Structure formats: C-alpha cells, structure tokens
C-alpha cells in the first residue's frame, strides 16, 4: 500500500514537473518573441553615446575637446557658466571623422591695454596662420574663436576682422571693401566682426585676381535698442525685414547688444521673423514683474508655420525665428533643462531625442537649456 502511494506521488510530481517546464519554456518564448530588439539594444548599449558633454575650466577646455574628438566626436555647441566652459560634442556618422580643434583668443595677448586695431591685426594673423594649416573657423564664444580641422585639403580659409570705430559705429566702407574682395560674414566675437574667404589651391591665383566689384552687392546695418541697450531692437528688426533685410547675428556685451542685418541690392523677397521672449504678465501697477516662460509649444507652433530658430551669439531667450520666402519646411522643437551636466547628458542621449539635433545650448540661472530641432519638408 505504502509503496503504491509513493509511486503515485512520484508520478504526479513528474507530471507536474513536465507542466512547469512547458509553462517556463512558453514564457521564455513569449518574452523572446515580444522583445525582438533585445539583441539590437545590446548592440546599441555597446556603442558610445551620441552626445558627450564637457564642463571644465578654460585652461583644460581645448585638451578635453580634442581628447573627445579623437574618439570620433565633433564639437556642436558651447556656452559658459561662471568659472567653466561647457561643450556638447556629437558622435560623427559612419565612417567616423576625426576632427581637431584649436582656440584663438580674441583679445590682445601682448599688452593688457592693447588697442582694438592692434588686437584686430593680431587675431587676424592667428586666424590666417591656422587657416593656412587647414583649419576653418567653426564657432565663437565670448572672446574665443574655435577653429576646426577641415576635411578638404584643397581649400584653405583666409580671415579679416573689423571692429567699431572711435564713435562706436562699424565702418561700413571697410565692410563693403571686404565683401568686394570676396569675403563673407563668418562670425562675431565680442564686438569684432569676422569675415571669411575660401581659397582653392588650384585656382588660388584666379581667386586673388578676381576684379573687385565697384558697387557692393550686400551691405550690413547694425540697429541697437537705445532704451534698454541689452535688449533686441525688435521694432527695427521687423521694419528692416519688411524692406528686405535679413538677420545675421545678435551679439555684443551685456552692456550693449547689437543686431546685425544684411541688406541686398536690389532688395530680396522679405524674410519674416517672430521673436519669442518672456513677457511681463503682471499689471503695470504691480511692484514685482511676473514673467511668462517660452515653452516648447511656442517654438513648435512657430516652427509648424515654417519659422526656424536662428542660432545667434546672444544667449537665449530671446528666441529669434526666421521664415524664408517660399519655404515649405516645418520645424519641431524640444526644450531640455537640467541643473547638472550628467542629468543633461542622460536626457540628450535618451531614445526620444534620436530624430532631433542640437540647435542651441544656453546657461540659465538654474542650470542648462538645450533647444533640440527637427524638420520635415512638405
């Protein structure tokens, strides 16, 4: 009797074991089929992240940027917070391109009280020396000009600088001469305007022998806000834009910001502009201002109407958005904020940002602000 019962129990346990095995194997199969991208995810996890962020002191900045560039990254945005410089570097597409960077300080290095004219000459010499070695002006920030190694060995770049004269106005004749000589607007650093010219090795002589144009094809105007000197002269921007001028940059120092606009002769079809900035929502009698915030929806709403965020030297906000005549492209934006750099890196490297690219990096009182952009043509 006892042995028969034991045998029955054994058989039951064996049968139960087989059922358990089936359930487990079914579960494994379901999990495997429901998540076919596990292998792909593992492959992605092995890859270095798309964005690499750097926040170091100025003395270490170039070294860290070049270290990261050697790992297949490219410098795409930079800003400064008190005591450090911040950079976003993006992994280059396949095949990885290895860039190299150098920094030209846009200030007098020989004397503390160097005149703007001497500084201009010294900086232009340094930029041209780097240009000769195959570097091209990549971006400027504050009083730094960052140059990137060029992938085209047949082309090198020449630079010329101009600065405001004694009365604080840019010399339009000097700018016209530069444009006639084949230079085009490249960047601004503090109050210096930087112009660039590409010289192809094969036809270097040809380029230098191009006869200067008698009438400048383009001219620049520099409207300023005379009431609040650090603010964007919005009214003048819209007025000049309606006459065919186009925004080139908004730059300067916190004490005096300057808008640069380019006019063509004859006037081109007008570009349209939208300026998004925090506005005071409190009553005019209120003691404290109550400022609104520019949200993602505001940028995307303008983007859906065909306006694109301009990458200007001035910190954002204001966000200046431009619509080219006849443009059918639509833009979508994401605003990412973070108090610390690892937090920002995590958000930038999340799968939700895959189809976006970095349009702007800014330092805020709370931390960092990154504007991401993506576009589609209609």
């Amino acid at each position, binding site marked *: 009797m006892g042995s028969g019962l034991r045998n029955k129990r054994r058989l039951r346990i064996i049968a139960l074991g087989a059922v358990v095995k089936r359930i487990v194997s079914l579960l494994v199969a379901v999990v495997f089929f429901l998540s076919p991208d596990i292998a792909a995810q593992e492959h992605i996890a092995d890859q270095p992240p798309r964005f690499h962020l*750097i926040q*170091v002191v100025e003395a270490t900045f170039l070294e860290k940027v070049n270290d990261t560039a050697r790992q297949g990254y490219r410098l795409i945005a930079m800003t400064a917070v008190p*005591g450090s410089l911040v950079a976003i570097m993006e992994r280059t597409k396949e095949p990885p391109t290895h860039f190299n960077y*150098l920094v030209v300080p846009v200030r007098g290095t020989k004397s503390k009280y160097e005149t703007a004219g001497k500084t201009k000459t010294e900086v232009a010499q340094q930029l041209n020396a780097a240009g000769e070695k195959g570097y091209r002006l990549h971006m400027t920030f504050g009083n730094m000009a960052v140059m990137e190694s060029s992938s085209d060995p047949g082309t090198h770049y020449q630079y010329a600088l101009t600065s405001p004269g004694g009365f604080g106005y840019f010399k339009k004749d000097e700018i016209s001469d530069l444009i006639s000589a084949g230079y085009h607007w490249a960047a601004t650093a503090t109050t210096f305007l930087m112009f660039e010219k590409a010289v192809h090795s094969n036809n270097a002589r040809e380029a230098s022998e191009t006869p200067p144009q008698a009438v400048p094809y383009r001219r620049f105007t520099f409207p300023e806000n005379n009431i609040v000197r650090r603010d964007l002269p919005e009214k003048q921007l819209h007025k000049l834009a309606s006459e065919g001028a186009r925004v080139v940059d908004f730059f300067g120092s916190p004490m005096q910001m300057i808008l640069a606009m380019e006019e063509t002769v004859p006037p081109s079809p007008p570009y349209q502009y939208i300026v998004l900035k925090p506005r005071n929502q409190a009553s005019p009698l209120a003691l404290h201002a109550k400022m609104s915030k520019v949200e993602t929806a505001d940028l995307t709403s303008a983007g859906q109407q065909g306006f694109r965020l301009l990458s200007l030297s001035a910190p954002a906000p204001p966000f200046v958005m431009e619509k080219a005549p006849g443009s059918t492209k639509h833009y979508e934006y994401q605003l990412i904020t973070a108090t610390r750099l690892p937090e920002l890196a995590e958000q930038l490297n999340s799968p939700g940002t895959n189809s976006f690219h970095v349009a702007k990096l800014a330092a805020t009182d709370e931390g960092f602000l990154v504007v991401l952009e993506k576009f589609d043509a209609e």
Partner: protein
Amino acid sequence: MPNNLIPRAARLAAFTLLAASVYPVPQHEPDADSAQQGRWSAVYQAGAARWGFGTHVRIAIAKDQLILAGKKAAPFSIPASAITAVSSNFTSEHTVTRSQVEAWGGLAQFSPYTLIFLPFGIPVMAATYPIKSKYAYISVLWSEKGTDQEVQFRLDRKDYDPFLKQLQKSTGKEWKNLESEWERLRQALAAGTDHPIRLRLDRKVRMGNVEVKPGTYQLIILAGTANQGDGYLFSSEQVNMEHLISTSRVEIAASSNDSQANDVIYKQDDSGVSRISEVRSSGQAFCFP
C-alpha cells in the same frame, strides 16, 4: 586743544576700523581632527559646481564620493570611482597684506575720508608683508555618464597630504603627491646625483597641462629605471617647490651634443601648439612625450 578736533567717538571708530584692517581676514581654520574625519575647509576656484570664485566650502571624502558643501548652496558630489585625474600646484601668498589692502579698499568705498589714516596703515602693511600663507591648488577631473567635468579648489598646504591620502584610499588610485616628489628631488639634489639644466625657451610652449611663456627656466631630470625619468621645470633661478611649473615623463638617450650649451628642440602637435620635443645637454638627450 587739538584733541577736541576729532570727537572721542570718531577716534574710537577710526581706531577700530584701523585695527580691523590690520587684523587679517581669518582663513577657515580646519578642525583639529579634520584629517581623521576626512573633512577639510577649502576655497572654491572654478569648475562644474555652480559657486562663485572664492566661495568657502567644506570638502568631505566619504567611502565612494568626494563631497563639496557650500554654506547655503546644495552640496556637490563627485563619484570617487569616476575621478580620472588629480593635479596640484603649490603657492605662497601674502594673505595678511592682501587682507589689509582689501580692508582699506572697503573703507575708502565707505568713506574716502578714512584714507587720512592710510599713513598709519602703510607701515603695518610693510611690516606684515613677509608673512605668507601656503596653499595647494587642486584640480579634480572626472568622467561620469557621458560627461567630463572638472573642479578646482584651494586647500591649506597642511591639509594637502592628508587630503591626498584619503582620496587615494577612497578611489583606490595613486595620485601624484607633489610634496613627496619634492622631497625625492631635494634628496637627489643634495646627493649631487642631479643638477639643474638651464633652458632658454624662445617661444610659448605647452608642457603637460601648463602653458609656459618664453624665458629662462631650470629643468631637473630624475632618472628612473630603463632610460626613463621624470622632468621637473622650474620658473626661476631658484629651484623651489613653489616655482615648479610642470612635471613630465622623459626618455633618456645618448646624444652627440657634448657642448655646454643646452639645445631645445620643439615640435607642434595637431592643434598647432608648440611643445618641447627634446632637450640635449652634456651628451644626453631627454625626449618628452
């Protein structure tokens, strides 16, 4: 009655202000047992923490992180395992005189008339000028979650060694201790096994992380094993730890140059920055990486 020209209260106030200006601004003294606790007072210089230059902070090394805490701001922590480089630099500063100059500046802003007492302050400043405070400037670099970050802070020199030892314990990595390096160098110089090489740099160069201006320098090579050594570059005639600009690994090889003149050969890296490639002196060539 000349004494009546300045009321007694005003004289007392002026004396108090003068005394305050002479008394140096107290540096944050470390606790007696701070080293044992792994906590030090420091002055924040620059970097990834969002404090202003000169903010007084407390630094603590816990088991797995380095924590910088300001008085009002939230603490800033660095994962110890993520630290990739620690570099340091020693200075001596005329803190007492500087505090007095700052105090006089403050007084002048408060009321320019206080400057009538400056003739009393100048001799005091002159007398206290030789008093120096010794500091170690420390830079910590770390890599974390797709980022590279750096902070720089100033420690009292006496806290440098315990701080570094504690950091080594916490990170499990050995960081270059300038004090012990200096001791090794001093012993080698005293034993006469090494002597300074006088160098004249005709251009701006970069040695390690430091930009070196054109001028005259002293280079000391401490030979190690298998043709390897360490190069120490000093900024002045006097070989002193506070004038140490940079250190670098060097390869030692024989050279055909037997002349007394020391040749410096430069190279340019990919960024167009000049670096010292080789120094030839007394039949030896010291190659820099």
